[in-house]
C-alpha cells in the first residue's frame, strides 16, 4: 500500500517534469523522423528531396464502364495524371489488375500504386453509390506518395462535385415529375466534368474518395521489409526507454540529496516498500512511454509493429530490462550532478554496442549483430526486429527471456548496492 503511494508520487513527479516528458516522447519521435529523412536519401532505397519523377502504376478497374461515349471517371483520372502539366512529376504506367500494380510497388519498380475501383463512374451518376480510389505507397517513402495522394484527391474532390451535380439534376427532374434516367444523369455528370477540366476548378471538403493505405492493413502478416523507419524508430524506443529507466532511478539519488529519502527512512515504512515503490514508478512510466511511442509512431510513420501478443510481450520485457538497468546504473551514481555525464556515456555506449544507432544502415558486418547481444539493448532491438518481421510470441521467446533475465539481474545487483548504501 505504502509502496503504491510512493510509486504514484514518483510517477506524478515524472509526468510533471518537462525534461522527462521530452525524453519520454518528444525526442525519440523527433530524432527518428530526422534520421529517417537523412538516411532515406543516403541509402538509395529512399527518395530524393529534389523530386525525381514519381513512378505511378495504375490499375483501372473502372474500364468496364467505358461504352457509348459515356462518363468514364477512371479514364478521366488517368488523363488527368498523364496531363502535360504533370509530365515532369509523374510517369504513369497502366497495368491490368491490382495484383500487378502492387507487385510493382513491392518490387520497387513503382513508388505508388493507384487502384481505381470498378464502380467509380457509377458513384458520379448513381445517388448513394460508394467506391474508393486506393493508393499503395512504397512504405519507405512519404513525400512521393503524399504528392500522388494530393493530386488524386484534387481530381476526386472535383469529381465529387460531379456526383453532387448528378444528384441535384436527378432531384430537380423528379420534382418536376420527369423520371431521371441514367443516361440523363450521365449527361449531367459529363457536362460537369467537362466544365471542371476547362476551368481547373476543384472543390474542397468532399467525402474522402481516396484512401492511402499502409501496406499491412490488409490483414496479411507484417511485411518482411517494414522499412527503414521502423528499424530507426525501434532503436529510438529502446534507447529512450533505457534513458527513462535510468532517469526514474535517479529519483533515489535526488531524494537522498533533498532529504526526503532519509525522512522516509524515519517513518515506519520498511525499506523494501520504499524501493519497491520506486521500482513500480519506473515500470509504470515505461509502460506509458512505450505505449505512447508505439501508437504515435504507427500513426505518424505508418509503422506496423507486429502481432499484438508479440508486441505486448516485447514491451513488457523491454520495460523490465530498462527499469532494472536504470536501478543498476544509478546505484553507482553518488549525486545528481553525476547523473548527466554518467547516463550520457553509459547509455550512449551500451546503446551503440546494442546497435541502436546503426538501424537503417545497410551492410553491417555479421559480427556486429552478435556483439549487440552483450547488452540488453541489443536483445531489445533483436526482439523488435523479429516482431516487425511478423514473428509470433513463440518467435521472440529467446530475446524476451534474455531481456527479463538481464533486467532482473541488474535490478537485484542495483537494489543490493542501494540497500548497502542506506544501511
Amino acid at each position, binding site marked *: 500500500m505504502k509502496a503504491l503511494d510512493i510509486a504514484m508520487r514518483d510517477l506524478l513527479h515524472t509526468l510533471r517534469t518537462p525534461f522527462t516528458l521530452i525524453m519520454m516522447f518528444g525526442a525519440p519521435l523527433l530524432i527518428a523522423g530526422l534520421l529517417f529523412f537523412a538516411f532515406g536519401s543516403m541509402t538509395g532505397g529512399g527518395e530524393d528531396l529534389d523530386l525525381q519523377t514519381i513512378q505511378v502504376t495504375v490499375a483501372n478497374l473502372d474500364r468496364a464502364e467505358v461504352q457509348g461515349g459515356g462518363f468514364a471517371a477512371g479514364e478521366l483520372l488517368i488523363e488527368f495524371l498523364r496531363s502535360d502539366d504533370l509530365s515532369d512529376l509523374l510517369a504513369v504506367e497502366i497495368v491490368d489488375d491490382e495484383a500487378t500494380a502492387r507487385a510493382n510497388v513491392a518490387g520497387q519498380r513503382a513508388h505508388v500504386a493507384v487502384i481505381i475501383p470498378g464502380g467509380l463512374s457509377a458513384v458520379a451518376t448513381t445517388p448513394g453509390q460508394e467506391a474508393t480510389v486506393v493508393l499503395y505507397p512504397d512504405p519507405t517513402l512519404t513525400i512521393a506518395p503524399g504528392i500522388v495522394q494530393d493530386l488524386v484527391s484534387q481530381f476526386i474532390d472535383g469529381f465529387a462535385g460531379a456526383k453532387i451535380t448528378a444528384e441535384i439534376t436527378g432531384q430537380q427532374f423528379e420534382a418536376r415529375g420527369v423520371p431521371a434516367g441514367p443516361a440523363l444523369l450521365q449527361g449531367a455528370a459529363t457536362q460537369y466534368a467537362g466544365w471542371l477540366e476547362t476551368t481547373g476548378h476543384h472543390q474542397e471538403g468532399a467525402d474522402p474518395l481516396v484512401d492511402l493505405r499502409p501496406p499491412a492493413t490488409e490483414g496479411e502478416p507484417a511485411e518482411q521489409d517494414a522499412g527503414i523507419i521502423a528499424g530507426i524508430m525501434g532503436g529510438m524506443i529502446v534507447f529512450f526507454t533505457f534513458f527513462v529507466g535510468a532517469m526514474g532511478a535517479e529519483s533515489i539519488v535526488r531524494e537522498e540529496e533533498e532529504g526526503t529519502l532519509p525522512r522516509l527512512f*524515519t517513518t515506519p515504512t520498511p525499506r523494501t516498500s520504499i524501493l519497491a515503490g520506486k521500482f513500480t514508478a519506473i515500470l509504470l512510466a515505461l509502460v506509458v512511454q512505450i505505449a505512447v511511442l508505439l501508437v504515435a509512431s504507427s500513426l505518424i510513420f505508418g509503422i506496423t509493429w507486429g502481432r499484438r501478443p508479440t508486441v505486448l510481450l516485447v514491451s513488457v520485457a523491454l520495460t523490465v530490462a530498462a527499469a532494472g538497468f536504470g536501478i543498476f546504473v544509478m546505484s553507482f551514481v553518488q549525486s545528481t550532478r553525476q547523473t548527466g555525464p554518467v547516463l550520457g556515456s553509459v547509455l550512449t555506449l551500451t546503446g551503440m554496442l546494442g546497435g541502436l544507432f546503426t538501424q537503417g544502415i545497410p551492410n553491417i558486418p555479421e559480427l556486429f549483430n552478435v556483439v549487440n547481444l552483450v547488452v540488453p539493448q541489443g536483445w531489445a532491438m533483436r526482439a523488435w526486429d523479429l516482431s516487425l518481421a511478423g514473428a509470433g510470441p513463440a518467435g521472440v521467446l529467446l530475446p524476451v527471456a534474455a531481456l527479463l533475465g538481464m533486467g532482473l539481474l541488474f535490478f537485484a545487483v542495483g537494489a543490493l548496492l542501494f540497500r548497502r548504501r542506506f544501511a
Partner: protein
Amino acid sequence: MNDDYAIRVRNLYKTFDEVQAVRDVSLDVRPGEIFSLLGPNGAGKSTTISMLACLLEPTAGDAYVMGHSILHEQMAVKSSIGVVPQEIALYEDLSARENLSFWGKMYGLRGERLRQRIDEVLEIIGLAQRQKGPVANFSGGMKRRLNIGVALLHRPDVLILDEPTVGIDPQSRRNILDSVQEFNRQGMTVLYTTHYMEEAQEISDHIAIMDQGEIIAYGTHDELVQIVGELDRIDLTLSTPPGQEEIRAALIQTWRQLDRVHQVSTAGHETITTEAGSPAEQSPDFEAAVDHSGLTLLVGDSNLVLPDLFETAVAVGARITSVDIQEPNLEAVFLHLTGRALRD
C-alpha cells in the same frame, strides 16, 4: 525495562571513517519534558538524533525510545517519534496539503482520520490558508513550519527537532518556539537541538551541552550556570595599531596570568580595522588606522579585575575601548568548560 524514560541513551558511539562524531553519549529524557541538546557546529547533535531515529546505526551502544531499542525494535521506535530534520525535507512540487497527505500515509494514516489530522495540523502550523499552491513558492519560514507539521501528523509520543530555527526571521522563530512549548503542554516529549543558548535557556526543562561528540555538561539551566558559580563575564573591545598582532597576543598572555581571570577567549569575535576619523582619536601613540578586536573573559570579580586590565593594556600600547559586564549564562558555561565560544 526502560519505560520510566521517554528516551534513554546508553554509551552511544558513532565513528565515520576517521571522525568520532559521537563519543560515549548517555542521557535520559523524562516523559513530558523539553530536553535541549546545545552545542556548536559539528558537536554531533544531528548524528545523535539520526541514531535515535534509526537512520544511522550506532558504532556501539544502544538507546531506547518509549522503551523500544533502536537496534532491535526500529518500527516501534519510528512509530513513536516525529522527526523534524535540520534541512527542510519536503516535496517542493506538491502543495502543503499534498505533502501532509503523502507523509501521513507513510505514518500509516488513511481516509477520514488522515484528512482530519491534515486539517488540524494545517491549523496548528498556520498554513490553512496556503494549503493549495506548490511548496516551492513558500517562504523559508513557511517551509520550516510545514517541515515541522509533517512530524506532528501521527501525534508522536516524542517530537525530535534538529535546529528548527536556523536561518529564519525573528517572527517565524518566535512562532516555532511558542508552538514547541504548546506541543509540550499537550503532552509531547520534546528533544530539541540548537546552537542558540537563548533558545535552550528559554524552553528547556533540561539541557545537555555537547561538544566534539561528547556531553560535557548536563542539568537544568540554573544547575548549569552554577558551574561557573560567582564568575562574571566581561565582553570588551581592544584597540591596537594595525598589523601588530603580537601586542594583542602578549596582552592576552598577560591577562591569563592574572589571579582572578579564569578564561580569555577571542572566539566569536572578529578583528575590524577602521580609519581613525576624528582628530581626537589620533593620539601620538596611534597611527591613522586601528584594529578593534573583541574578547570575552571569565573573571572572579569584575570590579577588582578591571583596573588591572586597563593598566596592563596601556603598558603594551593597547587600549580598551568598550567594556560590557554580563551575568553568567550558558555561553559562559561553555566558555568555561571548553575555552571556546558556542558560536564561531
